[in-house]
């Protein structure tokens, strides 16, 4: 049978009782996450409405409530190295329903930004960057589609960076400003050789 990543072994592992020490905490973490996310995880009273609203929760060990708690407690390593960080589909149901007016989805996004600074990032995210750097599109055109477009009376290439590739240079400058392409290339190469 096909299985999603790390289930149920990951769950068993997570249910083991653990002791947390002050040395596991980095108090700056809470502050940085709040700055990037522009939301207020410290207001969380752990009601669990977020996890109950989450489409990823019933089929994985991903618990948005737990991630919010980790932020409040400053458990940076534990949060950023948990592969479940990447299971949020960003549907914003939790954000819509949070009775404390927190945006848990944006808390996740902030943590993903911080994880990327430590090179923790699934490769597929970086491949989107590479595609956009080359073509301007995350999902570029192809020959089958070009033929279909012509039959529809559309131009073979849409009037985006595809038809006007002179705009790609500007996109590359923006991505280079943040050294995003260089970092993406480096990490992909490290992972895939």
């Amino acid at each position: 049978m096909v299985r999603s990543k790390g289930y149920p072994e990951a769950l068993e592992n997570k249910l083991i009782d653990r002791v947390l020490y002050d040395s596991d905490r980095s108090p700056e973490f809470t502050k940085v996450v709040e700055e990037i996310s522009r939301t207020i995880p410290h207001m969380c009273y752990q009601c669990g409405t977020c996890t109950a609203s989450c489409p990823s929760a019933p089929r994985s060990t991903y618990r948005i409530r737990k991630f919010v708690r980790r932020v409040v407690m400053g458990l940076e390593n534990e949060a950023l190295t948990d592969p479940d960080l990447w299971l949020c589909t960003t549907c914003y149901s939790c954000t819509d329903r949070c009775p404390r007016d927190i945006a848990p989805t944006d808390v996740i996004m902030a943590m993903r930004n911080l994880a990327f600074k430590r090179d923790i990032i699934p490769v597929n995210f970086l491949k989107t960057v590479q595609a956009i750097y080359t073509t301007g599109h995350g999902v570029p055109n192809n020959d089958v589609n070009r033929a279909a477009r012509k039959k529809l009376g559309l131009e073979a290439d849409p009037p985006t960076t595809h038809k006007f590739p002179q705009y790609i240079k500007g996109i590359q400058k923006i991505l280079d400003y943040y050294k995003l392409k260089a970092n993406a290339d480096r990490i992909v190469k490290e992972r895939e050789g």
Partner: protein
Amino acid sequence: MENMHEYAFYLGCIAPNRYPGAEAAAIRTSEKLGVKLLPLEGASCCPAPGAFGSIDLNVWMAMAARNLVLAEKMKKDIALVCNGCYKSIWEVNHKLKHNDDLRDRVNEVLKEIDMEYKGTINVYHLAELLYNPEICGVEKIRGSITNPLTGTRIAVHYGCHLMKPRKDRDFSVDAVSKTEAPHWMEEMVEALGAEAVEYRNKMQCCGAGGGVRGYDIVHSLDITNEKLINLKEVGVDALTDICPFCQLQFDRGQIEIQEKFGVSYGLPVLHYCELLGLAQGMSPQELALDLHAINCEPFLAKVL
């Protein structure tokens, strides 16, 4: 004909590059409804809010701002047909208009390419424009129909990023602001002569967003499969969406679900613009429905 409402048509990636019928239909159907969609030359990926937002929110904003500046130069508001694009283009526009620090940060980058974000335009989803009686409205849609989809049962997948998070959205039409049990898209479907069908947990995500489709395809498809089970329970002839990424997840996803889970549904998935095109008399060829992974014939047999 009265004055046309003109917009810069922001295409995104998946509509023009995977479901070009949705692009063609958007242009042709809205023209009949008083909405003219003009090409936005040099636009790029929005960029994908899940992928780019996860990596670095600053890059996400700068890249989206570049697209916004292109429309500012045209002096036109943007209309688009994808919820993911809406998340990037609408939300970044909104953030930059209301946060000077973010706007300054973005403009510092844009200076490198001789651009400046000014905050002079608005961004709309085409579906929201078509629903708004001040622009088009349901009655006008009904009046444009030459081939009513009578006798078909159609369910709506709203997707996430057009309406959610509600507190970060600002719709002029109240019905569009309801995120728990909205009904405005069902009204748009019934205007085409079809029966709009409710189903369990209809506001659930398609499962593709946030980079999850690329990160863990089985997890992602399992979410899609749950929706397909709920749709099968009520029995529908087609599913309609207003987001090409959701469309891809439901359409190609059904093939992947068959391969990985061994269940098949054969449920045609059409963008609302494609559905509107059929109801306005466009042929399946003019909508490139043959590019869909799931055969639309059983549905077409009922409406043609």
